[in-house]
């Protein structure tokens, strides 16, 4: 009895201590100014004429001049920072914060410091809409990076539009998003119908493969991309050896791979949003002796997660991305070095988030008038971004819909444990 009691005490102590340590560890790399409580700006709707009953702040009636507390301006960061997709979510959040820290360290934008407000949506569209409403009502927020998943963007777009609050998504690739006429929508990632057809053309015309087995993880990203690839491949006369789905939480691909093995495709196309997941797949494929070539989407563009974790199985794999290899771009060198030093790794979404944040900051800078920033100005400044040269290696600009002007897709192959650029393909205007 007594000994067991002591054991319990020891265990509980261990638990507590480890919790403290864990939170301590995590606390260290996140010294952003966010920890300050959300400053209530003086211009909450209560400041409007008191006599007029006004149930809520009417967005259209938001006064154009939004006075900021001297010296700060806020941007929102929306995305799945918890749950299954937090792998990509947190990476992006870190990149946003990283960019903001850099900007603030360099004196901010036009003398104003930027502050990041986090909005975790857990990839749930309903929560994303709530986050949008929250960002929208906080009139000191002038722009938003995210949401990251297409479902979240879909649900929250009307709300952002209501508040005229510009968003730049770093990873929502569903073509529909920019086709609905929402002016606030922008994204800094390839549309599925840019990337997919480009990949398909490369498979059919450059590699001249005859049959492809498609896989998707039942999420908007991979299902959308695999769907576009399939469409184009059929058009180009390539046999679809099969199209199967797995769940994002699946670890065991042996049943799937056994099936693929017997279908004997020339190539497997699997655009998983989590590169380590794709690496795991490749490893199991090697174990089972599956010989087909492999191609994935831009999410695989992370050496540590994709190439290193595959234990060599990724050698020879292909992938597509919107820009050239980040490591070869001089502008990205510092970012990569500092970011990985701080957070230990970097996904393709981190680069895109960083770039998006910088673009937004640039737009804010342009919109400062008399120490004030209005959402309308930021929106039009973002919209008018042309030939922005950041770390992605390709000039960034938005078209009318809010898509990237350039639809050029770069194809890479893993050679000797790193990415080698093969060629660039543009499928736009097919």
């Amino acid at each position, binding site marked *: 009895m007594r000994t067991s009691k002591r054991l*319990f005490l020891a265990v509980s102590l261990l638990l507590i201590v480890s919790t403290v340590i864990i939170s301590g560890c*995590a606390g260290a790399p996140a010294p952003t100014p966010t920890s300050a409580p959300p400053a209530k700006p003086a211009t909450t709707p209560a400041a409007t004429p008191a006599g007029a009953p006004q149930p809520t702040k009417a967005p259209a009636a938001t006064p154009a001049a939004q006075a900021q507390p001297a010296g700060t301006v806020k941007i929102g960061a929306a995305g799945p920072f918890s749950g299954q997709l937090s*792998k990509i*979510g947190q990476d992006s959040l870190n990149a946003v914060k990283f960019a903001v820290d850099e900007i603030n360290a360099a004196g901010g934008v036009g003398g104003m410091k930027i502050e990041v407000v986090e909005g975790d949506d857990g990839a749930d569209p309903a929560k994303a809409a709530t986050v949008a409403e929250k960002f929208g009502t906080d009139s000191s927020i002038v722009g938003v990076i995210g949401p990251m998943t297409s479902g979240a963007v879909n649900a929250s777009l009307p709300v952002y539009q209501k508040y005229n609050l510009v968003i730049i998504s770093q990873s929502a690739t569903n073509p529909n998003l920019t086709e609905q006429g929402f002016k606030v929508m922008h994204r800094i990632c390839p549309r599925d119908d840019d990337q997919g057809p480009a990949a398909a053309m490369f498979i059919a015309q450059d590699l001249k493969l005859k049959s492809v087995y498609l896989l998707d993880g039942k999420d908007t990203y991979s299902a959308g991309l695999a769907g576009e690839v399939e469409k184009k491949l059929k058009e180009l006369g390539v046999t679809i050896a099969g199209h199967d789905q797995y769940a994002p939480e699946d*670890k065991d691909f042996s*049943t799937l791979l*056994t099936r693929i093995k017997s279908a004997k495709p020339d190539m497997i196309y699997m655009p998983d949003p989590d590169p380590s997941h794709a690496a795991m797949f490749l490893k199991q494929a090697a174990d*089972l002796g599956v010989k087909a070539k492999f191609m994935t989407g831009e999410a695989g563009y992370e050496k540590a997660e994709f190439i290193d974790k595959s*234990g060599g199985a990724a050698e020879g794999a292909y992938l597509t991305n919107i820009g050239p290899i980040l490591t070869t771009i001089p502008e990205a060198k510092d970012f990569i070095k500092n970011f990985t030093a701080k957070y*230990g790794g970097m996904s393709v979404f981190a680069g895109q988030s960083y770039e998006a944040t910088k673009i937004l900051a640039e737009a804010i800078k342009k919109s400062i008038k008399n120490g004030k920033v209005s959402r309308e100005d930021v929106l039009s400044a973002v919209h008018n971004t042309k030939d922005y040269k950041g770390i992605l290696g390709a000039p960034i600009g938005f078209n009318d819909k809010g898509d990237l002007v350039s639809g050029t897709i770069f194809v890479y192959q893993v050679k000797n444990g790193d990415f080698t650029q093969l060629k660039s393909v543009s499928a736009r205007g097919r």
Partner: protein
Amino acid sequence: MLGSACCIRVVSQQALPVSLDEEMDLNLALAQLPQQFVNGITLGCLYALIALGYCMVYGVLEMLNFAHGEVFMVGGYLGWAIISNLVLGVTPRTNAVLILVIMLLVAMAGAGALGVGIEWFAYRPLRGASRLAPLISALGVSIFLQNAVMLGLGTRSKTYQTMALIPRDMSVSAGDVTIAGTRILIIVVSILLMFALHFFVQRTKWGTAMRATAQDREEASYLGIDANRVISLTFLIGSMLAGAAGVLVGLYYTQVDFMMGYSAGLKGFTATVLGGIGNVQGAMLGGLVLGLVEGLGAAFISPAYKDIIAFSVLILVLLVKPSGILGENLPEKV
């Protein structure tokens, strides 16, 4: 119901991944059969190891320990802590077998301690409360552990340098069937652990005490059996098995991540119920059946529907036998 109705209209629109193409017919599926069988057995062993923890806890406390999957995950991380320290790059610092044993022991010890701690902190104070209270507490523990690990160790998965210990060429091939070394390890270790458990429960004094406590806690206490001790012991053993499963999963999939407990837990839970809650042999059988159903379902129907197939089999089994395959169908005493 919905499925079939929908399929009819779907086929006309576009070939669904579900429907097998003409050429990928039954023969193809049959050709996969031996390999899928092996796949299913491996999966089944893992499910069974996890299911045993659920099952034992349910037997003694009649509660679903939703945090069990997270204990399994922690076991996986503990194994990673060992392997990443004892393997430099691709070269093990010492004998590979020794490293494997250390990994298993450390993960089992750590997971066992964690399980006991969880019971002590989150469940014990709730004895006698409504049945739902410990369920919520367990969910809370599960959410807490998942996110605490994420905070502490990051969102990225951790890599096991399995190949340094079990090289890829250490596999058995026969015709189309390939059994990787890691699979053999999983099957052997699982079977050993299950035998050990069976011996413990059936043949030892404390094992008998555990069964007695499961049936009537109060009465067992009148014989001098300290129920709290038995319950701690149950959590210890169940969690140790989960910890071992965590390491095996890490070795096989070469990665562990903080979310891995969720789906593994779900599968373990399903396997438990399939076999008959509270029945140790049932849990083992349930795990194997579930693994096989998934493997064969994937071969003959579609991997996209493997969970649906698994759940459908579960539902069918329960409709025929409401207390699981090996569950006792006791008529309620009136």
